[in-house]
């Protein structure tokens, strides 16, 4: 079995659409099946990692606790684009996990170091 390097670029806000949660399912599955998977959060995707998500009143499952299982699923890296945080008035302390915050040039390098890119 040939292991591939897979990068998920998450650009969508959670809950407004199913992109965030179903993309996470796919990323976890590929990783559990032995591929080397990393996740990037950019644009509105950074909202997926916001602390204190309370979804009871909109009647949807809170997806944010699942991100904390990333190590169990052997996800390689979690990256967040600095510019996307800034544009949304957010900072590292707003996020529920310790992630690698990188600038756009570093992000370009991360993309270059992967074989397959998944956009969501």
């Amino acid at each position, binding site marked *: 079995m040939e292991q591939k390097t897979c990068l998920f670029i998450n650009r969508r806000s959670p809950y407004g659409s199913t992109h965030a949660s179903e993309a996470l399912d796919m990323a976890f599955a590929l990783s559990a099946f032995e591929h080397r998977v990393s996740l990037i959060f950019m*644009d509105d995707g950074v909202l997926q990692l916001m602390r204190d998500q309370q979804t009871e009143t909109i009647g949807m499952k809170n997806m944010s606790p699942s991100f904390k299982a990333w190590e169990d699923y052997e996800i390689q890296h979690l990256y967040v684009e600095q510019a996307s945080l800034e544009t949304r008035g957010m900072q590292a302390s707003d996020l529920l996990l310790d992630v690698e915050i990188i600038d756009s040039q570093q992000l*370009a390098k991360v993309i270059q170091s992967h074989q397959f890119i998944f956009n969501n």
Partner: protein
Amino acid sequence: MPTLHIINTSPNMRTALQSCLRVMHEDDGIIFIEDAVISVKKDTPIAELIKEKILTGKCFFLKPDLEARGIKEESMTQGIKLVDYNGFVKLTIEFYRTQTWS
């Protein structure tokens, strides 16, 4: 190892192109398909945005999508390259990976 970025939404409606330009490498290519083909029009803010990319000769447009939308050759920015579905396939081989932006 350069990437082929596939843009499929109009830059007047969505920020896919802007985000793509922010994180793309200078050797990367872009192909505009579906509603993104409106980016081909000359003398527009979008044309200005992709000017440098066009100069590198790595800006491609899916011809069937341009034709479908009635966009004529004389209204297109100079230097862009038109491809059909076969050309699109060839590009995905020429570049090492693809990244779709919606």
